[in-house]
């Protein structure tokens, strides 16, 4: 496979369950080494697409390629290169952590030496070494999720398909999981992640595909979503303490449309026309007004808004070439789980 070839390539994919059309001709690509978010409301067709990529379902129409391999014809090769983590725990609870991982490593054809190394590696990566001899059924939900992720990694797949990996996890477990996913990206793996938690996807993903009622509403870099509503910028200014004059100072800057103050926090949300002003001008105005600025960052809730806008009936889809997304970190060919 050439480096330029996308890891995932879906063209005009259709899939129906009896009379229910789950996926209606979707097309998108995912670049090598990227973390690609896959979002959409319930029933949008996300899980169907994921299962087709994981070779659990055969595509009924259209072309689905993973590393250039057709998922229907070359399903065994695709399975060797991908790891699928479903949205439920798929664990043998009567096994210990070590046995569970060892079992899958053996099933992937590894000898004892390889298994010992790989199981040690994935346990270290998921920070589960101290639990290696514990029964899975006694572990917490967060721990079980880590074991699921560790299982996906035992055969060192280059593509990870993660379906709602953070669902049901507490905030700490979610943050830790996100850290692991970033680490996996640094190892050169491509990660295709389906999630409902948009704010986390915005922080994690390089590119995103938004699906609604079986069609792609948007596919491209995360930054493209912020630019979607054209010339308007939406930023959040965080201060050390409330500064009554800063609101009026910001309003006076040319191009500022609106300044609102969220309740009970020394923060101001600034909406402005990008053509008339820029971030430096706004920041300088706030500092000149005597405010002690702690942070000035793009309002990430905009992704939620974009999601709501895009999944509204009647809104035309916006397709961007994912390849134009910010280049992902250089893959590490030697990276192993």
């Amino acid at each position, binding site marked *: 496979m050439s480096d330029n070839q996308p890891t995932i390539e879906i063209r005009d994919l259709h899939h129906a369950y009896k009379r229910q059309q789950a996926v209606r001709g979707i097309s998108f690509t995912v670049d090598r080494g990227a973390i690609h978010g896959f979002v959409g409301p319930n029933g949008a067709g996300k899980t169907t697409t994921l299962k087709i990529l994981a070779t659990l379902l055969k595509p009924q129409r259209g072309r689905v390629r993973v590393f250039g391999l057709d998922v229907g014809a070359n399903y065994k090769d695709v399975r060797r290169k991908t790891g699928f983590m479903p949205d439920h725990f*798929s664990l043998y*609870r009567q096994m210990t952590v070590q046995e569970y991982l060892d079992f*899958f490593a*053996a099933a992937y054809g590894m*000898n004892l030496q390889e298994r010992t190394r790989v199981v040690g590696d994935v346990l270290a990566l998921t920070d589960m070494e101290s639990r290696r001899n514990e029964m899975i*059924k006694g572990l917490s939900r967060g721990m079980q999720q880590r074991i699921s992720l560790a299982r996906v990694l035992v055969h060192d797949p280059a593509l990870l398909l993660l379906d709602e990996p953070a669902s049901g996890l507490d905030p700490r477990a979610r943050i830790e999981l996100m850290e692991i996913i970033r680490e996996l990206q640094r190892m050169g793996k491509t990660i295709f992640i389906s999630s409902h938690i948009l704010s986390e996807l915005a922080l994690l993903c390089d590119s995103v595909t938004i699906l609604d009622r079986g069609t792609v509403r948007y596919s491209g870099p995360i930054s493209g979503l912020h630019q979607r509503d054209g010339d308007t910028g939406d930023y959040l200014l965080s201060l050390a303490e409330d500064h009554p004059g800063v609101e009026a100072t910001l309003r006076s800057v040319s191009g500022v449309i609106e300044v609102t103050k969220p309740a009970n926090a020394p923060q101001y949300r600034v909406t402005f026309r990008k053509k008339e002003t820029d971030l430096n001008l706004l920041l300088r105005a706030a500092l000149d007004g005597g405010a002690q600025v702690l942070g000035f960052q793009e309002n990430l809730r905009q992704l939620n808004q974009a999601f709501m806008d895009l999944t509204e009936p009647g809104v035309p889809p916006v397709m961007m070439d994912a390849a134009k997304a910010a280049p992902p970190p250089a893959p590490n060919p030697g990276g192993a789980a």
Partner: protein
Amino acid sequence: MKIPAFALFERSLRVETRAPMMSWVRAGLLIMILFILLPIQSMARMGVYAAPGLHFLEEMAWVNFVFITLAGLSYFASAITEEKEEMMLGLLRMTDLSPVAILLGKSTSRLVGALLLLVVQVPFVLLAVTLGGVGLSQIAAAYATLLAYLFLVSNLALLFSVAFRNTSTAAGVTLGVLLFFLLAHFWLANLLQNSGWPTGIHARGGISSVPYKFVDLWRQATPSDRLGTIFETGFTGPVISFQVLSNLVIGVLLFFVSWMVFEPCTREEKENAPGGRWRIGPKTRQSRIPRGLIGSKAISWKEFTFTSGGRIGLLIKFGVAGVLILFCNVFFQELGQNLDREFEGGLLIWISILATAIFLALDAGRIFREEIRWKTLSSLVTLPISIPELAYRKVAGALAGTLPVLIGAIIGIALIPKDVGDFLSDVFGDTAGTFGFIFAILQFILFLHLTAFLSLVIKRGAMPLAIAIQYLGGSFLMTFMGMLFFRGGADGAAAMLIIAALFCVTMTVILHLAIGRRLADVAAQE
């Protein structure tokens, strides 16, 4: 105004009555009556049966008896355990529903459904009177016996469903207690007679007669004994017998015990991981995976260790077969059987084959079901092997955990090689015998396939349903072909068995392919 205690009961009754499965069961019941009736009527016309009505009633009653026993193992034993397995019982208990409301809603509604299935047969069974050889009182007595037995079985299974965490344990214990109830009085009676305990006239009225009276009452309380009495020619006994009253009273008592133990047994919701029942599992342990295990052999290892119970499970299976052999030895010794080499050899062979068949049937019902239950099929299916290979590896693991029980049969053959040789030359001496033997094996293979397939389609009760379907299908096939080939003599019988064997093979192949397809579907639906 609705009484809260009956709210769940009423809802369950509505759901059960409207369930499509119930319509299929009713249809199956009618077909079964037809297939029992048809050959009896044909035989009666040819003068084979003197009392065809009695034969018809007898067959109907015994089939019902077997089905009630099987229902106790699946339908009734899962009443409460299914809620435990799905971690739903805690939610039910958090509502205003009292324990008795849950018991009525989950178990008594099933009992009412099953009672209706029995009652609905009565008008058809009255045809027995027209066929001749049987009186109305016999029909009423037989159905009273079955209804009382059903009541007993449902409440016995309910008790174990409350007491145990999973359906298979509840079903296993229910089966054990039922077998003890139905059979142990024979052994006890013979034990008493051979123990030198004072009998007959010396014991009459004295304290020493109590054990005899107890054993006699026990015997009278069993439906098998009562049905035997009813089917004697010239039966004039009462419709409501001691068996009916005792079964009803014990049933009520069991319901009350279930009610009493409901709270302590269900107070804590515990996760019910599969595969742990053969062993007392520690919280931590070193890996049990063998060093040289590579590739798809790992799947066989997992199946052997967890579904089939591993080495300990194998020991338990040997233990069960051993207990059966011991029981038969004691039982037949009490009956005056000479426990010589021939007897022991034969016993070893048959018990080993029977035990292996039972364990294989249990494995067939569990081998894929456990993966579905714990949603682990999608992980297995994404391994780089095909679904047929995955399935065969699983089967190989299950076979490795059960087939060693056949060692008993090999020892038996070694003990009586000449008898086995004679038996085999008898069987394979003529065409009909050969095909009969092949047909029996093919039927069992078909049964295993049917059980495995049904376990992929329905949540529980795959094995009893497979028995019912195979019984009905077998009855249909044999009745139909019996009519076609009856006049053919020995050649006709051989031809009939060849066609039946071909039919078995065809159905097995269809089910074999359907299992693979269904596995892929289920994995995609997880």
